[in-house]
Each structure stands twice: as structure tokens, then as C-alpha cells.
């Protein structure tokens, strides 16, 4: 199975390493041609505004939209979740909008308020979770399954082929969230 990681900006190396530990072929994606033959695509942590501009200027937005239409599963962590959300409550732009959630950017606060903790993920159990200037899910549409909460706040969700998390499983050694995504990829 070949899984891509959007590699225009962000913590790409950590995602690639996690996939390699699961013995999956992991491909960094900076050009449209690198999307070919992918069973799934990860949008990493980073700065959502920077990643979006780089995707646009690199001609990757439409090919990723096509990939989504073709049913290839997508997984976004932190900035990746912002990019996949239908609505951003505190920002004028909308990015891909593939999952029916409204997110608030930097909802956990500035960096001094970033934290690590554990969250209970449905069907997995307790996983370590690192939240860095993290977005939270403020609203979720009827087709969206909330998979984890932190202090009553939804922080992980799935709708069809799209999986999102406010936190960074790539910064921990726990691979169970990836296993969940790989199951979606077939």
C-alpha cells in the first residue's frame, strides 16, 4: 500500500517515519505526479495558510480534489484538519472543505498554552495526544462521527473517507491512529 504525505510545508518527516514503522510505502508529495497510485493521503501539521498557498501555487489543489472525488481517503492532523474542514469560524478563507465541520483555528491558544495529554479515541482506547496551537471542532454536521473529545471539546472526527484530528499522532510513538487510517485505505 502506498500512502502520500503532502510535503510542501510542515512536519512531513514525522508522518513518513510513522508510516515506515508500519511498513507502508510512504511518499512525500510536492508535485501533482506524485499523487498517482496513492491508497491514501495525509495532510500534516504546519501552518494551514502557508500550506494552502503552496498547494495552490504548486498546482496541487485540483488534483487533490480529484483524489477525494475518486474516494481516496484523506487524513489531516492540526493544520491538515483546518485544510479539510468545510468552515473556519475565525478566518475568512475556506480551504478544501471536504468534511462537514466548522473549526476554530488556534483554539487552544498561543504556544504557551500548547499541551500534551491523553485522549480516548473510539474503537482504539487511550492515546497520547500533543496539541499545538490546536484547532478545535466547534460544529459537526449530521454525517460526522466524533471519535475523540478533550474536556468536552471534539478533537477527532470522521466523515466517509475523511479523517481529521486536532492533535499530532505523528509526534508520539503510538501508531494506533495510523492503523485506523490505514484500515480506511483498504
Amino acid at each position, binding site marked *: 500500500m502506498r500512502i502520500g504525505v503532502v*510535503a*510542501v*510545508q*510542515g*512536519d*512531513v*518527516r*514525522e508522518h513518513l517515519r510513522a508510516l515506515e514503522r508500519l511498513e507502508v510505502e510512504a511518499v512525500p508529495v*510536492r508535485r501533482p505526479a506524485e499523487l498517482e497510485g496513492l491508497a491514501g493521503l495525509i495532510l500534516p*501539521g*504546519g*501552518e494551514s*495558510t*502557508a500550506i494552502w*498557498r*503552496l498547494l495552490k*501555487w*504548486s498546482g496541487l489543489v485540483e488534483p487533490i480534489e480529484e483524489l477525494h472525488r475518486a474516494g481516496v481517503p484523506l487524513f489531516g492532523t*492540526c*493544520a491538515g484538519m483546518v485544510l479539510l474542514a468545510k468552515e473556519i469560524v*475565525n*478566518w475568512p478563507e475556506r480551504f478544501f472543505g471536504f468534511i462537514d465541520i466548522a473549526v476554530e*483555528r*488556534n483554539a487552544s491558544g*498561543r*504556544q*504557551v*498554552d*500548547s*499541551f*500534551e*495529554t491523553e485522549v480516548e479515541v473510539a474503537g482504539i482506547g487511550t492515546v497520547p495526544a*500533543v496539541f*499545538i*496551537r490546536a484547532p478545535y471542532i466547534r460544529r459537526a454536521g449530521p454525517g460526522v462521527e466524533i471519535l475523540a473529545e478533550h474536556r468536552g471539546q471534539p478533537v477527532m472526527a470522521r466523515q466517509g473517507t475523511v479523517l481529521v484530528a486536532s492533535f*499530532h499522532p505523528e*509526534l508520539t510513538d503510538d501508531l494506533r491512529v495510523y492503523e485506523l487510517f490505514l484500515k480506511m485505505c483498504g
Partner: protein
Amino acid sequence: MLKGTYRVKTGFAEMFKGGVIMDVTTPEQAEIAEAAGAVAVMALERVPADIRKQGGVARMADPKRIKEIMKAVSIPVMAKCRIGHIAEARVLEALGVDFIDESEVLTPADPFNHIDKWQFKVPFVCGCRDLGEAARRIAEGAAMIRTKGEAGTGNVVEAVRHMRILNDQIRRLRDMSRAELVSYAKELGAPVEVLEMIQELGRLPVVNFAAGGIATPADAALMRMLGADGVFVGSGIFKSENPEKRARAIVLATTHYDDPELLAEVSEDLGEPMPGIAIEEIPQEQLMQYR
């Protein structure tokens, strides 16, 4: 729920990789940087080129200026404190800046020590010219490293020098026996434990950006080719003729550093870059990198 842990600090720095951090002095400049795809801005009162020109003591920026910039953008805001100035660092932490640069661009406050960065919740980035300096800063708790270069010159040669030296020293370290490593630690003035960690990883245990003299998209691409995880651009953007276009071009060049056709395209018609200074023309005592 744990805040300010080393994982939270270094993990945040990992998010900057492949990106450009831009010096800004006004909210308007910060907005231009954000629109051009910067991953963070460095809030300053004066860019390094002006600090160099005006001389005198360069200090932390006015908190009012920093707050205005924090309000203007949604991306992370960094700010500089003087080397060893624990109080300036505490002020910046209280303001809620996302990262502190303990920077040689400002006039050093402590002739003996750097800040003990383990005592802070906010992460720090520090400059280095070689592996010894990088290892000492990491031992003090730096969550990110940048090679120093020579700030405010628009001349990339010192940034290249420092990255080349760092790479060469890490390469040598990789093949060393335990006895050689201990001796090398003495030679570099570096803690043994940090060198052991670097030897095991084959790289620095934290993100390493390039800084000091990057003025063109090709400069940014060059530093990425040499292994930098990303770049800081100080005076290079807002001291140039067309900051918006140049900022965007540098952002694209930092991501697509290995695509010469794209580099050619984005380098075209950017207007005048910032004026450059030959390093030999700068009196030794005015070089910032030795601070």
C-alpha cells in the same frame, strides 16, 4: 495536561519545517508576510540591516509593537531578546509570543551566559556557527537552532559557512568511537550527552533553520540544498523593492528548492534586492556572529 514540555516545544518547531520565517516591523508588513505564505513572523522594531547601520544598543522591541503584530496575524509570532537577558525573555513570555529568539542581532546582555531555557514554558531558538555552539544551546534547552550567518548583510556566504561547518562536524561525529566522541566534546566545548544524541540520530535533535544574509529565492534554495529545514529572512524582504513578490518567491523556492525551472520562474523580475555588504568590509568587532 502538561504545558511547556520539551515535546510540546520541539514539536512546535517541527511544524515550521519547509517554511520561511520573516522579520517584520509593522502590522502591515506582518499581513504581507502571512499572505505570502510565511510560517511565522519575527516582530522587531528595526530589521538587522538598520540595526547594523544605526549602531548603539539594540534591545527587545517595544511590547506595544509586538502586541500590534500579534493582533494583526493568525500565524505564530516570534520576538527577539538579548543574549542572556532573562528579564526580556520573561516579558516576551508574558506577552504570549509563540517563540523567543535569543539573538546575536541584539546587543548581548550577559557576557558569560545564555539563558537557562529549561525554566521557560515558551520555546527558544538560538543561533550557532558550529556543532559546539549548537550542542551548548541545546543543553541550555533551545527547542530550535538556526545557523547564524551574518545578519543584515544580504550576503549569504556566512550562512553557507556555518551550515557547511555544522554538516561536516556532524558527519565526522557519526563515525566516532566513544573515546573519540569524548575528546571531540572537549575540542568543541560541547556536552558529551548532547553529542551522543546527535551521533545516534545523525542530525541535530531539533529543527535547524538557516539565517543571516538570505536575500533571494536562490539563496533560500541553496540553504535548503545544504540541509536547512527552512529559512529565516531578515532584512531581505522588506528592504527590497517589491517585498510582496519577493516574499512569495522565497516561500516557493524554500519548498521547491530542488526544481531549477521553478526557481528560474520565481526569480524573474523581482525588482532590486536589498543592497549587500561584503563581509571583509565589516570591522571584526561589528560582526554579530561572534556574540
